[in-house]
Each structure stands twice: as C-alpha cells, then as structure tokens.
C-alpha cells in the first residue's frame, strides 16, 4: 500500500468534514422547506466513501445508492451544484429533475444515485463489463446498502460478475439498518461479505468508522479487481447517526447505541491522528473547520438563489 502523505491526512479530514457540514446544512434547508421529498443523510458514514476515494483512479467508475450526497462530494463534485439539485434548481447536477436520490455526473464517471434498492448493483456490474469489453484497466466501484443484500438481483449480478470475471468492486455499506429493520431481523446470516462465497467471490469485513482500515482494505481489493481476477466484496461496518430519511425519528434503536458509535466518530479519529502525528496544529484544524463551514454556507446560498427550472424544461431530456 502506498504510504499516506501529510497532504492525504488533510485531504481526508477536509472531505469528511465537508460531507458532514453539507449534510447538516441539507437537513436545515429541508427543515426550512427548501428541500423536499426524500432526503437521506450520510452523517456517520463519512469514513467509508472517503477511505475508498483515497484509492481511486479518476477514470474508474462509481455507482451508488440513494444515500449519495457524500459520495458526490468525495468524488470531487461541486457542493454548490449538489445542493442546487437538492433544492430542485436549474444549476443542480440533474438540472432539478433528479433530486436527492438521482444525481449523476457523466464527466466524472459518477453513474448515480439510484432510488430503487439493489438496482444499482447489476448496473455497476454492466459498467464494469464495459471497462472490460473496451479493454480498459479501470474498475467500477458499486456500493450496496445492507438492505439490498437480501435483494435477488444482487445475487444475479454477483453470478454474472464472477462468471465473466468483471472488474467490479462491491462495497457493502452496512449501517446496521435497512430503514427501520435491523440487519439481524432481515438477513439470515449476518456476514454479508460471505454472500459472494458461493460464486467464488472473495470478501472481507472492515471497520468503517476508521478511515485507515477502509483505505487498507480498499487498496488490497482494488488491486485484486484491477489485475483481472474478477469481483471482490468488502463489507464496511458503519453507522448512520441520523434516521433513514429526514422524517425518521429512529425509534428502533437506543440512544446508548448511537452514543456508543459517536464515541468512535470517524472525523474525530482522523483529527486525533493529525494532531498526534503533528501534521497540523489545532489552529490549522480550526481554519479548515471555518473554511468548510463557509464553503457549505455558500453552497446553501447558491442553491437557494439558483432559479427554478424553466417550465419548458418539463418536456426536455425525455429522448436524446
């Protein structure tokens, strides 16, 4: 594994913080009625996508679930335009037609943002198929929620990926609950990473609250897939601090459980490392905090001032 440089630590901290501040601001805008519909926040899970980001090649493809804001930020997309999509404005990544769950950026190889549980898994497998068909060395990272791991098409995709040795890295974000149903009430057999075994797909379980563990696993798995060995599964153990969506009070879990996870907050872990390794001083960290807050404030400002789509846009983009 490539040794992490000082700049890498700062990058990780900044991205994770940016995701958290973004999501908090999104929650506020939702509360103000500026964001409508469904809105699923990523708070608590930041180490997963940022850890994976540290091992990514920009020509690799990504496809994920509807809990996608953090994934877009990690991909380096502009928070202004992400927020503008959440507010349904013309500057949003989908010009206001997709919303929170359906965002894409073809130029950044970000293929969504999918609202149907499990649907992104065959799609990501197909994107990987294309990389192989075209003779490219790239891979497709396909994120899966724990809830989708009981969905039939996921296993159909695993079978195809293994059968055709496709360059796809499956990342299960196990945040312990599919909406309000805990994994142990939904899945027979809790080791979701083993669910590729029958197809000969290797799998591994990783602590998703610790970005360093994620990087290590992603690096190893990424190499395996890139070398043409076929798919690989990593199950990242993580936790969402918020409810499933904005309107979920999360009564199905205890306050103690949440507090317990907050003790291992992924952002705090990186911050502690940075200070311990003297990569940055407290003041420098404070500056990042302030700048991040400012950037996200500006994004919210931009997103609430961007115009609504023109009425004529209703009928565009149905066909190419």
């Amino acid at each position: 594994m490539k040794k992490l440089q000082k700049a890498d630590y700062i990058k990780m901290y900044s991205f994770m913080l940016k995701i958290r501040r973004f999501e908090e601001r999104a929650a506020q805008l939702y509360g103000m009625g500026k964001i409508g519909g469904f809105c699923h926040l990523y708070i608590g899970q930041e180490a997963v996508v940022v850890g994976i980001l540290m091992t990514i090649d920009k020509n690799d493809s990504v496809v994920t679930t509807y809990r996608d804001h953090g994934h877009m930020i990690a991909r380096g997309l502009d928070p202004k335009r992400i927020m503008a999509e959440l507010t349904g404005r013309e500057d949003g990544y989908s010009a206001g037609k997709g919303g929170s769950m359906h965002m894409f950026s073809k130029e950044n190889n970000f293929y969504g943002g999918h609202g149907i549980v499990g649907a992104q898994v065959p799609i990501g497998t197909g994107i990987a198929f294309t990389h192989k068909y075209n003779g490219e060395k790239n891979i497709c990272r396909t994120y899966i929620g724990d809830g989708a791991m009981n969905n039939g098409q996921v296993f159909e995709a695993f079978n195809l990926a293994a059968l055709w040795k496709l360059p796809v890295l499956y990342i299960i974000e196990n945040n312990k609950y599919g909406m309000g149903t805990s994994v142990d009430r939904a899945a027979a057999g809790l080791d979701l990473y083993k669910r590729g075994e029958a197809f000969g797909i290797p799998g591994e379980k990783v602590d998703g609250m610790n970005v360093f563990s994620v990087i290590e696993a992603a690096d190893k798995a990424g190499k395996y897939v890139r070398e043409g060995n076929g798919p690989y599964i990593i199950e990242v153990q993580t936790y969402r601090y918020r409810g499933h969506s904005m309107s979920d009070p999360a009564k199905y879990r205890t306050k103690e459980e949440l507090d317990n996870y907050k003790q291992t907050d992924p952002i705090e872990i990186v911050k502690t490392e940075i200070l311990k390794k003297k990569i940055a001083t407290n003041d420098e960290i404070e500056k990042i905090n302030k700048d991040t807050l400012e950037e996200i404030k500006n994004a919210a400002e931009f997103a609430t001032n961007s115009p609504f789509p023109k009425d004529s846009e209703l009928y565009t983009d149905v066909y190419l």
Partner: protein
Amino acid sequence: MPALSPTMTEGNLSKWLIKKGDTVKAGDLIAEIETDKATMEVEAVDEGVVIDLLFKEGEANIPVNKAIAIIGDPNEKVELKKETPVEKVIEEKKIEKNIETKIDTKKDNIIDTPSPKIEEDTNLSSEEITMRQALRDTMAEEMRKDNKVFILGEEVAEYQGAYKVTQGLLQEFGKERVLDTPISEHGFTGLAVGAAFKGLRPILEFMTFNFSMQAIDQIINSAAKTLYMSGGQINCPIVFRGPNGAAAQVAAQHSQDFSSWYSQVPGLKVIAPSTPYNAKGLLRSAILDSNPVIFLENEILYGLKGPVNNDVNFSIPIGKANIAKEGKDLTIVTYSIMLQKSKEAVLRLKEEYNLDAEIIDLQTLRPLDTETILNSVKKTNRLITVEESWPFGSVGSEIVNIVQRDAFDYLDSPVIKVNSADVPMPYSLSLEKLYLPQVDDIINAAKKVSYIK
C-alpha cells in the same frame, strides 16, 4: 420550526435541550419536535450563543419555518430574516399550464421522413426471406459496422437462438460480442443497461417478452428514466427485442402482449414490425437510436417470407406508420401479426360487402403516428382498431382518445376496438381461438361501424 417530513406543515415544541446563554456548536442537539409522524431531535447547524428561545416547551401547532430560537453572536444585533416559502416563489411564477395533456410526438424527436413503401421500392430483393433471417441479417450488418454493438440473452450464442434469430452470430463475431446469459433476466438486463449508460450499444434478446417482467424495473426505472433524471447527461442506447404475444397453445404465462404496457412509458420507443421488409428497416433504426427501444417481434411471424431491401443502410424511420392498403370506406389501424389477419378480413369485406377498407400498419407504437391515423379517419369517417393486446387501456384505447379529440366531427360512427378477450390466455386450442381476435371479429367490427347488418 423545521419541516421534518415531506408533509409536515406545523409542529409542537416538546422539549428544549438548550437554554439562554448556552454556547452551541454545529451538530449539537437543541430541541425535541413533535411532527405529524413522530418526535424528532433537532440539531444546530450554525455555531453561536443562544440569545433567545422564542417558544416555550409544550407549545403546539407552530407553523413550519417560524423562528423558534435565536443563535448568534450576542454582541451583534440579530434580525430575523423573512423567508419566502418555496410554494410562494413558484406561485408567483404564474405557471400557465395547458389543462389538456397531449402526448406530443414531436417531442419524441422523430425523423420526419415518410415510411418507405414496399411497392415503390426499386431496391427490392428478388429472393424472399423470412422475418427471422431479416432480423438476423440486420443485427449482423450493424455489428460489422460498429464494434460497440453486441448481443446478449438466453441461448443466443451456442444454441443459435431459441427461435434461431441469432443463428451464426457467435461464429462470425465471437463470444465477446455474442453472450449466452444465465436464466437471470433481472440481473442481465440491469447489466446491459449499465453497459449502455457507459457507451456500449447492447441488443438484449428476451426469450419472450413475458420474461421481461422479471426485469421490468430495470427497463422502466433505469433505462427509460435515467436520461431525464440526469438532466440529459446519461442516455441508454439499447434494444430490448424478442417475441411478444401469443404463439400456439403456450397458455397464460407465455402468451401475453405487452404493447400497451411499454407504450405507456415516456423515455421508451416501442416498435412492432409485421413483415420481413419493415422488420429490417425498423430494427436498423432501433439499433442506431440513442434511446432504449422495445422491439416487439412475434413468434408466429418468424417464418413469414417476403422481399426485403438489402441495402445495409436501408432503414424505416421510427414513429411513422405505413398505409398497407389504401381504401375509402373505413380505416383499420393495426400492428404486428394482426396486420395479416386484417389483410384477410379486407379481402372478404370487398368481396362480400363491397367495402373498400384502408389498413394502417402502425409499425411504431411510441411515438405514435397520429397524423397518418387522423388523415385516414378524415377521409373514411369510420375506424376500427385491431390488436392482440388485452382491451383495457390498450394502444387502441389511446387511438380512440386521439380520434375523438381531434377528429370528432369527421366520425360517422363510434370507433370499435378489436382486442383479445379480457381473461388470461387459456391453453385449450378451442378456447385459445376464442381468446384471440379472428378475421370474423374484424369483419363484424367493420360491418358495425358501416351500419351493415
């Protein structure tokens, strides 16, 4: 007062978790709010000192977006901003919406050239080939031209196609471009859709469209909607093809006609060829199209022979109907296998009742060529629709809607739809015959719109 669900309009302040003078940081819990659905904790987004709490614990029915507390710098004077609710902003735009929702085929981006007529085609092959061969040849021609075109499906490669439509393709193009899939429609359809998002041009064969129901989520939610949901960024150039409708005594689960199901979906184009000639021209257009195309073949028609145009660039535009026979007394609008039955009926109508019927073969179901239909009705003043689909909400139902709206004054009699029976397809030969539209049904409908007893 934050909105904490898509439907919340007011909330109750159950509990304050902060008091005046407290310093709060982003992410700190500040209050418990009771919504229309649950009691939720609310976090601070900004940092500062709690300057004032504007409502007491237990106060109810506080409107969404009303300030409930002031957090800021105590040395600065804080002024409450008046927020305009989003609904207001939109209302002020005064949207003028046409109350009549027309399905506008121009929006479907069709090529505006008429459908070539087989009678006038000077490039017609002397030899007659089957529909099966016509489809096969077209796929091979396009695969030779463009390496991005590939085919996948059950038994398309080694077995040479369950109905031999892909015969020889594996031998010519190899296993990288002609892929046998497991019996796994949901998975391989999603895979093909992903490949199309990424720039390949898959041709996906369903052994029958009945099996496409296993994959319908990927067809509708992923293939048809993503261009729109991505604000025009990600298109899906894919052809879903295979036999649709009844074969012979394969009963309820293998005989359904999906014409109207798929035709209802914006983002899809739907084609139903009826002859080797139009199968060739339409399949080429489907493969070259940048959108997802549903290509509904018919198993009984696979063996139908006819001349074709062998020019490797010959195509028939999507969205154009063909007047298969001109006439003046009534119009029969049909597609796919029912063209053959309509032709038989028309011969007998002339012979037995001296009725000169015009036949419109739709060729494309979406976008629908309403212009050709309306022009014909304006000429003949009588219309029947003939199709294999179930009657409720069929393609014919939409045609009736369009004709009553746009040619009401031209109609001399009510439009009659001829469809299959409104039951699952029975197995027994005698019942199957009753279920499907027959030549006699078409003749009876034609007599009825012509007031012939």
